[in-house]
């Protein structure tokens, strides 16, 4: 597996497409061990640790996309801090409120509290529901486009003839989604507040 510096990771994640995919895989494999050890030392299960860390990686991705993480701290430090905060929030039910507050790790890169960072599950469902109104192929094309894959890569992955075919498909699917968004003001508000 290719090795990355933090600067390389930031560049790859911002670039999107397959560069981002490889960078995300590297981040996951490099840093999950320390989080699993932390969770295990707190009598958490392996599955809890994985869930926490996966959300922490998503958080990193969101922070990079929003520009709130710019590499002033190490990615490993940032991920570990987010993971610890998520752990105390979600799974550490026996920790008293005052202990919880003192054990929260400040994440300097954002002024948001960890509670604000990730969408709650029901909010995620609302977004998912809108996309699920589209045909599966439309959802596939839009998600790959959303992950910043080039039209050429999307054509290759999904078996389309060429980039123009993908572009036309994407526009067609986006128009359909636009009509769904138009009639769902609640989801629009959710999206506007999140980004």
């Amino acid at each position, binding site marked *: 597996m290719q090795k990355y510096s933090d600067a390389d990771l930031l560049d790859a994640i911002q670039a999107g497409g397959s560069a981002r*995919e490889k960078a995300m895989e590297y981040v996951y494999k490099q840093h*999950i061990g320390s989080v699993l050890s932390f969770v295990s030392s707190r009598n958490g299960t392996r599955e809890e640790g994985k869930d926490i860390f996966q959300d922490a990686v998503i958080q990193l991705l969101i922070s990079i996309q929003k520009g709130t993480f710019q590499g002033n701290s190490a990615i490993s430090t940032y991920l570990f801090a987010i993971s610890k905060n998520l752990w105390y929030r979600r799974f550490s039910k026996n920790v008293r409120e005052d202990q919880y507050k003192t054990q929260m790790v400040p994440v300097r890169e954002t002024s948001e509290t960890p509670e604000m960072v990730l969408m709650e599950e029901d909010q995620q469902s609302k*977004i998912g529901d809108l996309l699920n109104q589209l045909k599966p192929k439309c959802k596939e094309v839009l998600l790959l486009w*959303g992950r910043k894959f080039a039209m050429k890569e999307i054509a290759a992955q999904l078996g389309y003839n060429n980039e123009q075919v993908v572009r036309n498909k994407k526009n067609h699917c986006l128009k359909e989604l636009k009509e769904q968004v*138009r009639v769902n003001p609640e*989801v*629009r508000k959710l*999206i*506007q507040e999140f980004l």
Partner: protein
Amino acid sequence: MAYSESTFEWIEAYLTNELSPEERAVFEEKIRTNPEFAEEVAVQRDAHSLVKVAATLDYKAELQRIDAEMESMQRQPFFRLMTVRIAAMLLVLFACVYAIVFFQYNNQQLFGEAFSPYPDKYMYRGEMPAADSLMKSGMEAYNQGEYSRAIPYFSQLVQTSEQPGASLYLGISFLSVDNPKAALPAFDLASLSPTWAETANWYRALALIQDGQDEAAKTVLEDISQQETNGYREQATELLGKLNSSWRKLPGM
């Protein structure tokens, strides 16, 4: 107000930064002056944002896939390690068996085990006076193991006179210096003499083995092993058995 396909594409070009600065200025002027159009752009922008958020959240499924792959690989190391160890042991075992078989059954080994220079019995045959200088010189060199020095004497004898004994020792000298091709004609000549035929045939078989002519060697050895009174019968039978061994079907034999 329903907007056309071209308007959708115009808005799309704006949102994906594909408009020139001049085109962008025109577009933004329209947003400022046309609230309905501005709302249309906002809805399309929100659709973009929704896709972006959904794609980001979708990464969790990708991370779960990566994790499943890691778990699968982590389960395998023990079995992989055992497989590698067993494979390594089998390889070492095979190499040892092959080495043992190779050194027992390859042609050079078979020849080496079976061959020894025929002792100097020529002078007792009574066919030629032991005082013959060429023969004497040749046998002196032969008996000292200096086969290269013996060859010219025996060769001259073979060319200038009928000396089947000299032919035999010439062939054996050639075999001793690893020249089976030169030895074979000498043994052919020696086998014409009833006195030397039996010995010449045995050494002929050895020359054929040394030269890699297995089938021809087997023919000679089969012939010898079927002669009940042949002095080389037992040796020929044993050597034939090794030549016919299935171990010799291994590559490199």
